[in-house]
């Protein structure tokens, strides 16, 4: 059946209009205002690239926010996805109780970030925190490390609030492992492939695009991370755990410097686009194997 172009256009128009209204137009506004000195109190002056130049040359907090964001993106795209894939692989062997483990492991991903943040704040509290309590029990001496606010532990503690919770990656990668055709596995076994060879030569290459999707989801999640940092350290101590979304929020809502915040939004969107483009290239996402 041939559908006329008019009908296709008619069905697509509402969607395109809605998309333009809630995404394209605001995005254009953000791009335009990023070239303005726009602050509360009616200040609105064109400043060209000044916001961008200031951000990349003089603003130390911006530099720290970019560095932290990129480190977290990299960690999430590598360690987080690797860990999730490893667990998914182990689960795909269907050892006893794998379904229960899969469900339990998913819990941190299905509760709200604010609840998770409150739990973790209490886990890592200096006084009465679970971690310090365990260390105190083991060593026999009172241990009161302030995990979230000591300069030497703040970054790693914040990182731990998401790095090890790979439930979403596990679910996606597990589906990928399960979708590898049994005939291919059987054929490889007949040819004498070991479990390790099966994994690295057959299964992982075959779920390459699935893993690419996992990496995109994981990496971009750190470009938008806000709640867990805001609710645990607020970006501190100092600027040690600040990232771009949090700095953007502070610039907009506390400094009321909307032009500068728009510039950060543009930078963040660019990072996202570059990130997705690179991952697409690395994982050859447009070439299907299965």
């Amino acid at each position, binding site marked *: 059946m041939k559908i006329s172009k008019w009908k296709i256009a008619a069905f697509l128009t509402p969607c395109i209009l809605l998309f333009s209204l809630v995404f394209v137009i605001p995005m254009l506004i953000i791009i335009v205002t990023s070239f303005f000195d726009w602050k509360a109190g009616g200040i609105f002056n064109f400043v060209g690239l000044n916001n961008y130049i200031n951000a990349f040359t003089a603003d130390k907090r911006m530099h720290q926010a970019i560095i932290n964001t990129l480190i977290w993106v990299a960690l999430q795209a590598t360690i987080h996805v690797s860990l999730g894939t490893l667990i998914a692989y182990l689960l795909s062997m269907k050892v006893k109780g794998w379904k229960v483990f899969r469900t339990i492991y998913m819990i941190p991903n299905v509760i709200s970030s604010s609840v998770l943040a409150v739990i973790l704040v209490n886990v890592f509290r200096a006084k009465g925190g679970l971690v310090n309590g365990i260390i105190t029990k083991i060593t026999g001496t009172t241990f009161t490390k302030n995990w979230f606010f000591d300069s030497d532990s703040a970054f790693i503690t914040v990182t731990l609030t998401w790095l090890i919770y790979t439930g979403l990656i596990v679910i996606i990668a597990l589906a990928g492992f399960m979708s590898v055709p049994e005939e291919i596995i059987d054929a490889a076994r007949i040819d004498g492939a070991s479990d390790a060879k099966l994994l690295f030569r057959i299964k992982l290459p075959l779920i390459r695009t699935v893993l690419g999707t996992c990496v995109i989801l994981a990496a971009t999640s750190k470009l938008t991370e806000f709640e867990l940092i805001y609710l645990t350290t607020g970006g501190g101590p100092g600027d040690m755990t600040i990232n771009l979304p949090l700095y953007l929020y502070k610039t907009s809502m*506390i400094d009321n410097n909307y032009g500068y915040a728009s510039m950060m939004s543009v930078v963040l969107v660019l990072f996202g686009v570059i990130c997705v483009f690179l991952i697409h290239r690395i994982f050859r996402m447009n070439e299907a194997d299965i």
Partner: protein
Amino acid sequence: MKKALLFVLCFVMALGAFAAVQAQDVVEINVPTMRIGINSSAEWFAERSAAFNAEYGDRIKVNIEEIAGDQNLVDKIKVLYSANSLPSAFDLGGYNVIDMMKDQLVDLTPYIDEETRANASDICWEVNTRDGKILGMPFTRQVIGYFYNKEHFAAAGIEKPAETWEEFFEDCEKLKAAGFTPLSMDTADSGWVTSLMLGAMIGGTDEGEVWMNTALPTDYNTEAFIDAATKIQYMFQNYTTPDAIGGAYEHAAANFFIEETSMIANGPWMVSDFYDTTMVDEDFADKIGVAMYPGAVMYNSGKIGWQVGAKDPKELEAAITYVKFMTSVESQLKMLEMTGDTPAADVASDNVYPLVNETTALTENAKHSINDFQSLWYANVVDEISVQYPLLAQGTITPEEFAQALTDTAQKN
């Protein structure tokens, strides 16, 4: 049958038209508030709202938007301001947005008659006035000293609260030697408790008093400020609990309530908690005393009050009526009795906890009266304190660097 249906239809339509006419007479105003849930003045707000509805409900409908958390409300108001759509009326518990929003706030001067003016002392009106225009209607005053545990003091051999900062630190040593943690401190949410101590240290001289009463300071590189920051750093490192760094007011208060710490800086609105046996032991309130800061310093100032953003004349009239009601002497007395917050008017009540009146009485002997940082400093500086305090506490930055960081932040405005 048809006739009956027609009759019912006509009746319903007439009823609808009548209701619509009636509804037109009722003016609606929008009032966002953070005085809900566990907020110490939630009960007061609910009682006053009910009283307002009983008196004006046939003419004015108040649409209350409940927003949990002071900072969330402040953020919401800023967003509304940037969209040029401030709510009909709002108060932010003393948080200063007047300087930022003075171009959109209604000048209340024409609505302040003699009777209304008598509802607050001159100092309260001054805090709410910019360029001769009254932009906020005051209803409470800021009176803050610090509370101390008399039992701890007695056990440590301290006879009375310190009169100088040297004595204060000696007392801290005595408390520490007696096995108590001397101070409740915090760093989160602008480090309210800690910053009160910081301000009191700065305000201990005539020059410091002037500085602490200066709106929107942009230079923190003063000798008094750096000296105070040095003392605060020492306090963090020697006299407080491990959870002070990163902790919020709630943690500081909890440490005082469970008698782990001996002193906490805060205002009389905290007193009602001293009697709340869900938080403290039954005889806790009897153990608590209140004092001026060393150098006879007290926070004693006006506080930013209710502001009006209504634009439509009818809405504006209704908003003024509402704000006048919420700031009336009756409302202030209710506030005093229900929360311990000091009225803007020169009124007192016997129906309050003794510590509340004792706190207010201390102002009479204060040599230096100062305003608090949240009312006077730029919002981004108030936020920056929380960022920098942990570094100062750990010695990662010096007091000079702390002062410079706040200066840099203030100069972004």
